[in-house]
């Protein structure tokens, strides 16, 4: 289990390739990556604020809950903070399991809890305007399925 919170970009391809590599007992690996989205085409920067200390605690707790709940060979969570541009990768999770059901469910669980329980806040800068991204009700609702 590895949890990383950092400002610098991470190498998604290398992280994905290295995750659970050489493990002969894990048949299924799932990754999720969150990308800075700019649907309207006007976004200049996405800025992510976080709560140093609590962020790591919260992510480790969520990752540990996934490990306790599913049969997993490994878990990885990487999340950036600070300013980033459209198309940049914000974060990733990866799960390895014997079978795909555990790997998929654990990855979705990690994402659902990370979205609503880890202390990150997104601010979008577009032109001269800046606005905080509002939490989506469906993200909070997603927790009820677990």
């Amino acid at each position, binding site marked *: 289990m590895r949890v990383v919170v950092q400002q610098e970009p991470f190498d998604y391809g290398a992280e994905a390739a290295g995750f659970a590599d050489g493990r002969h007992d894990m048949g299924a690996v799932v990754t999720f990556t969150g990308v800075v989205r700019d649907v309207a085409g006007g976004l200049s920067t996405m800025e992510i*604020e976080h709560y140093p200390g609590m962020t790591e605690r919260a992510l480790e707790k969520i990752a540990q809950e996934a490990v306790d709940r599913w049969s997993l060979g490994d878990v990885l969570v990487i999340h950036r903070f600070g300013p980033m541009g459209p198309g940049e990768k914000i974060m990733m999770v990866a799960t390895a399991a014997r079978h795909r059901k555990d790997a998929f469910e654990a990855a979705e669980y990690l994402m659902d809890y990370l979205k609503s329980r880890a202390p990150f806040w997104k601010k979008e800068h577009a032109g001269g305007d800046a606005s905080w991204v*509002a939490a989506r009700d469906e993200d909070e609702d997603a927790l009820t399925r677990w």
Partner: protein
Amino acid sequence: MDVLYFAWVRERIGQPKERIETTATTVAELVQELRAREDRYAAAFADLSALRVAVDQDLTDFDASITGAREVAFFPPMTGG
């Protein structure tokens, strides 16, 4: 105790962190005390349903005890991922 503010709560109050001496025993009592201070606090804490709170870096609710707590943080719902 240290009181921390994040995202638009931080912007509305105008600072990320302050040291507060209080006799409040719950988050709700602390909020009442802060609201009474200045308009910027009243504005930030106007709608508690739009706020979340963590005591000593654990997410909790407004009824939670803050007796002995080292830090209390207020912020909007999280939007990571």
